């Protein structure tokens, strides 16, 4: 399957965001019902993921982390195979061996997904070195969070990428939360993008809850990386509106902050903009939402019908 990279229509972006939301809500509902293992969602961050991926070219490569649903689905991953993976089934993209936390889909260029916070930062330099030394055209988009930006490997990665001039678009999804701790408790400064300058590279912060703003900033950043061969640090300013890991009662979250961010929900904003401007009549919006829900129902049925791996898979794929 070819990655979907040339999307320009906001309705299509909205549909992708709706798909990500419906997919993750299905996982949450499944975990409440005891049918799906608990997982880390990216609810509230859909625009940040969808907007950036929409700005990438088909031969660009993506490295992501445990909050990967938007990156995978926007890149064209099949929700049925993703759900099969989350449920540990044979038809999952990783044969059920990954589960939700580190899903890679090489055929779509989603490479080496790591759930070790900062793991993707350490691997991206190597992937970009291959692109550069083997003369391949694509750049490397590396998604991480504000938590990973507090790991030592953040420094090591940006420093080496700058010294070696590696074509990496670093995307920090600053979702305000580092597992169960607000970033205010763990780091100085508001913005991760301010850290670009000491490495001699450029950075920018964009409203991560506005899919068009994200797409526009990512297009400019990716083009810069592509033409200069140098890294760029883009920060998408967003919010993790669910807990760290399902289930999570979020008793530690300030209700006022939560409410303020919910009022800026990226899907509601995009939908409202489309409806208000007449580009998406309300009945068509409702039809879009219905289509997405039907896709997820079918995906869940596919995943549920997929068998568990044979027990001998426990020891396959260990050595090449």
């Amino acid at each position, binding site marked *: 399957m070819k990655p979907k990279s040339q999307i320009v229509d906001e309705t299509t972006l909205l549909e992708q965001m709706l798909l990500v939301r419906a997919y993750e809500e299905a996982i949450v509902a499944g975990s409440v019902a005891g049918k799906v293992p608990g997982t880390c969602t990216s609810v509230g961050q859909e625009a940040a993921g969808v907007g950036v991926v929409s700005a990438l070219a088909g031969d660009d490569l993506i490295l992501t982390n445990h909050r990967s649903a938007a990156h995978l689905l926007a890149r064209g991953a099949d929700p049925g195979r993703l759900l099969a993976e989350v449920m540990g089934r044979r038809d999952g993209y990783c044969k059920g061996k990954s589960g939700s936390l580190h899903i890679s889909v090489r055929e779509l260029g989603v490479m080496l997904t790591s759930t070790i916070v900062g793991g993707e930062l350490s*691997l991206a330099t190597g992937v970009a070195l291959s692109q550069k030394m083997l003369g391949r055209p694509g750049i490397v988009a590396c998604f991480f969070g504000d938590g990973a930006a507090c790991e030592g490997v953040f420094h090591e990665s940006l420093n080496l990428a700058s010294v070696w001039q590696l074509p990496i678009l670093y995307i920090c999804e600053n979702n305000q939360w580092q597992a169960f701790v607000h970033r205010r408790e763990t780091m100085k400064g508001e913005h991760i993008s301010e850290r670009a300058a000491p490495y001699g590279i450029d950075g920018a912060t964009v409203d991560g809850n506005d899919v068009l703003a994200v797409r526009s900033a990512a297009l400019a950043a990716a083009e810069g990386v592509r033409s200069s061969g140098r890294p760029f640090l883009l920060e998408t300013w967003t919010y993790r509106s669910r807990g760290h890991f399902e289930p999570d009662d979020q008793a530690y979250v300030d209700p006022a902050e939560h409410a303020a961010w919910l009022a800026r929900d990226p899907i509601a904003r995009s939908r409202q903009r489309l409806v208000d401007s007449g580009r998406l009549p309300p009945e068509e919006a409702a039809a879009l939402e219905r289509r997405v829900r039907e896709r997820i129902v079918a995906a869940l049925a596919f995943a549920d019908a997929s068998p568990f791996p044979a027990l001998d898979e426990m020891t396959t794929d*260990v050595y090449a």
Partner: protein
Amino acid sequence: MPTLTPFEAIGAALAEEMRRDPTVLVFGEGVATKRHDLVDEFGPARVRNTPLAEGIIAGTAAGAAATGLRPVIDLLFAPFLCYAMDELVNSAGKLRFISGGQFAFPLVTLAMTGGGWGVGAQHNHNNEAWFVHSPGLKVLMPSSAADFKGLLKSAIRDDNPVLFFIDLALLHQPGEVPDGEHVVPLGKAKVLRPGSDVTLLSYGKTVHACLAAAEQLAAAGIVAEVIDLRSLKPLDEAAFLTSVHKTGRLLVVHEAARIAGVGAEIAAQVAERAFASLRAPIVRLGGPDAPAAASHPLEQAFAPDAAAIVAAARSLCR
């Protein structure tokens, strides 16, 4: 047959493999400074100095290995591997399995260890067993110049992450290396001296202590078989089981701490699979459960020497 030091043998292996395969590259702390002949021949893109940052060196190698290059990285001293554990163990060792086989990690990590330079415990720690215990990795520790070359060539050609431990006391000890293409397969132990009374099983520097001990034991009428494991993972189980079936006595010798060391695994396997052949209890000689000291006599006493091996073997054969 030409004579090379292991340092030179490593350089020869790197040069030959880089000539053979344009995707092989080498980077690490001071690599381009120390191996300027490689820079001259292959250029600065394939022979790179790096920051003193083991995590990103290893992570870069893992990412590059999964996407078409075959990196060899030099992390200098084995204790520095602690900074690269996530990248080697969690990424290179596990992401093949986690991804359902979508990626392979053909990379080699060089690291020195062992007594000899008086550098103390943060530069000298035989931690090879940690990596034997980590899935997806292979582990080598040669004892001769010829094996340094032949095993490194095989490691570079292998599609898995390989930890290549260099006993630093051996690094500048010359030895014969066969002319031309010399490749030693991974997972094959080598019988260095055949014998019938006791098996002396070792790897790295202590192989030479075993050979010296065998010489002394021969004078006392005890014919010891000396086996160099060379590869700690995959482990050549057939080699030591065959030997123990013949001799009935096993002495495992290494500089690494005895506790949960490679010798413990071998002893357990022999107890499980060759118990009926044993004529005496298995004995392990290894370092104490302590950091290695810098002070010369303490550093040297950490590793079993020929006298200790002779005494243990004589006791076994009594």
